[in-house]
């Protein structure tokens, strides 16, 4: 296990130890899963076993919960998560076109990750930014009033930044 992984596990364990001490400790399961996803980007199977052990909650129950909520990813995701909003306001203002553009540009469908592991595409239910619909969110940043061209430009910005990053490192 690398140092980074040990650190992650330690942080998770500390979080769970705190949770177990609370009254109704079972009820903190979703909070723990949020923590796992924050650390790992998704919910890895072996980490779930650790959670089951520490929290004293059956793995089956944990998976029941993890699969019920859209927010949790069950497989590894790319470096950037692109969430195209498909809320009503965005729908009325052409969100499907934005989604089609992203799909075509990244050559993946919703729920998939690009081969270079740079982007994962998700659909969002409503990002609450209806005033500037249609919108998409890349990681925590919201991009509004999109059309096909603007969408492609934004994705290219991320690609460019990644390329520059790689060049800097090499």
């Amino acid at each position: 296990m690398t140092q980074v992984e040990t650190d992650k596990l330690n942080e998770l364990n500390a979080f769970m130890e705190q949770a177990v001490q609370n009254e109704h400790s079972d009820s903190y399961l979703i909070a723990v899963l949020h923590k796992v996803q924050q650390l790992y980007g998704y919910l890895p199977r072996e980490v779930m076993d650790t959670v089951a052990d520490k929290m004293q909650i059956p793995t089956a129950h944990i998976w029941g919960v993890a699969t019920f909520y859209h927010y949790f990813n069950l497989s590894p995701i790319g470096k950037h998560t692109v969430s195209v909003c498909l809320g009503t306001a965005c729908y009325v203002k052409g969100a499907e076109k934005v989604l089609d553009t992203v799909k075509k540009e990244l050559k993946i469908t919703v729920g998939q990750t690009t081969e270079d592991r740079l982007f994962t595409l998700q659909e969002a239910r409503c990002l609450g930014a209806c005033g500037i619909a249609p919108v998409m969110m890349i990681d925590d940043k919201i991009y509004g009033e999109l059309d096909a061209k603007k969408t492609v430009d934004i994705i290219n910005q991320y690609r460019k930044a990644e390329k520059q990053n790689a060049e800097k490192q090499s």
Partner: protein
Amino acid sequence: MADLRKDNNVKEVHYKLTLCDGPTCIHNQSKQLHQVLDAEIKNRGVQNVSIHLSGCLGMCKKGPILIVNPGYTMYGNVKAADIPEIVQSHLVEGKPVARLTIIEDHLYNRFFRIFGDVDFFGKQMRITLRNCGIIDPENIDDYLSVRGYEALAKVLTNMKPQDVIAEVKKSGLRGRGGAGFPTGLKWEFTAKAVNGDKYVICNADEGDPGAFMDRGTIEGDPHTVLEGMIIGGYAIGAKKGIVYIRAEYPLAIKRLEKAMDAARQCGFLGKNILGTDFSFDIEIRLGAGAFVCGEETALIHSIEGSRGMPRPRPPFPAVSGLFGKPTLINNVETWANIPVVILDGGDWFSSIGTETSKGTKVFALAGKVRNTGMVEVPMGTTLREIVYDIGGGIPNGKKLKAIQTGGPSGGCLPEQYLDTQIDYESLAKAGSIMGSGGMIVIDEDSCMVGLAKFFIEFTQDESCGKCTPCREGTKRMLEILTRITRGEGRPGDIEKLERLGGMIKKSSLCGLGQSAPNPVLSTIKNFRAEYEEHIHQKKCRAGQCAAMLSYTIGERCVGCGACKRVCPAGAIEGARKEKHVIDAAKCIRCGQCFDVCKFNAVSKA
């Protein structure tokens, strides 16, 4: 609180003070006030201030009147004893003395005049959003300066729990989450339940697509929500509160956490609040992206760490809720109204609105309307006033087709319902619902069948799967709607949708299923002709259902070749600088040629 104010750097402003010098004010010693004011300013060495005298303002009952600009702050019945406070707080520290301003009796609309004559604000009345956009949400001192936590202090020192409940009942406030259950009654039920601990929950799981009022309220004024919850806790006898909020709202979560820390430090939250023996604390729990968790029993299951599935009621959460204990659940907007109900009084609150619906409602106005955003109007305002007077009408010269309220649980109201007054009953009578406050304006470019399909797709996906009518019924409805939008609709489909929808409404377990067919049923009721065109003539008048479109290139074509290059199906032929032609057999109706043409030569029909 003095040390809290340290971090406020107010830049030096030139203040222009206007003192009314009309006969009544002179009678009320405005001359003497002038001297005191002048002396006080000199005494404190305040620079950049000029004092002017004005003729009679006409508001003689409130005289003497002192107006401070910039900001149009108007002080009424000013007495010499008030002058030191006004000079110190307003002119030195930059904080108007809310207590002495003319509308000091009301919390609502206090700062409204600073918005001036902008149409967008003209018809609004802000109770929930009274501080949004005005105060710094991350600074508790700002909230205190607008009489923040004063309602809590009043409740803890002067009111018994049953008085608080009586006041809320008197206000006529109803649940702003959508169903409109009388808030006071809910409080009373929970207060009466006896079974050990009790809980207070704030439902901030705003899942309706197209709704963002709760996010706006928490981000703009988190303390008012906390204050409402603490008062609720006192009224029903709870020690613990939980805010259940969507994980998709990181900024709202951050501001809420910050507000809770500040409130704890100031003694508004935690042990022995304001030195009394009442203790109450609040915890945040994150949702994880499940629309059904907005339903109260599902929300409780989610807080308990399980799959968020609803259960039959009764028992209602007021009797057996979180961890089996009596639980009071209200929506963000409902909580934000509580401090106003307490300070301005239930009588005043119930004077606003209609016979059955009191107060105001916040709407998230979005879609094809010029001014999108959050608006708050008194109950009884018409849809027309919201869309045209506040929203500024439909952009690009398009025609209004429908207004959608209530999100996936609501309905679409066509133009003839524009004069419907907004209240729980009128909207229901018109065939929609109040809902939590999403309001989407739809113009002629949207296909109503497509919109109905969009909503059913949503509820289908969000159906938790516990009860059959919702799980299977919405799926069958989606299949039929998909068929219709693909141009494969059959005679009898509309009737089938109506039958199925009625059945799902009657037999589903929770609110999600019981309201899921509404968008379909209301579009069938109001836009039946569009469904019939899709089924019988294979025509979509909005030009949205791709399968029913055909693209042609007209005379404007200059033969630039842009469409030919972009066509993924190779369906466009034509030599350079000559008119191009689309082969309908090859065309996959993706619309890229239409988008790319700079000469408007491609038309769709």
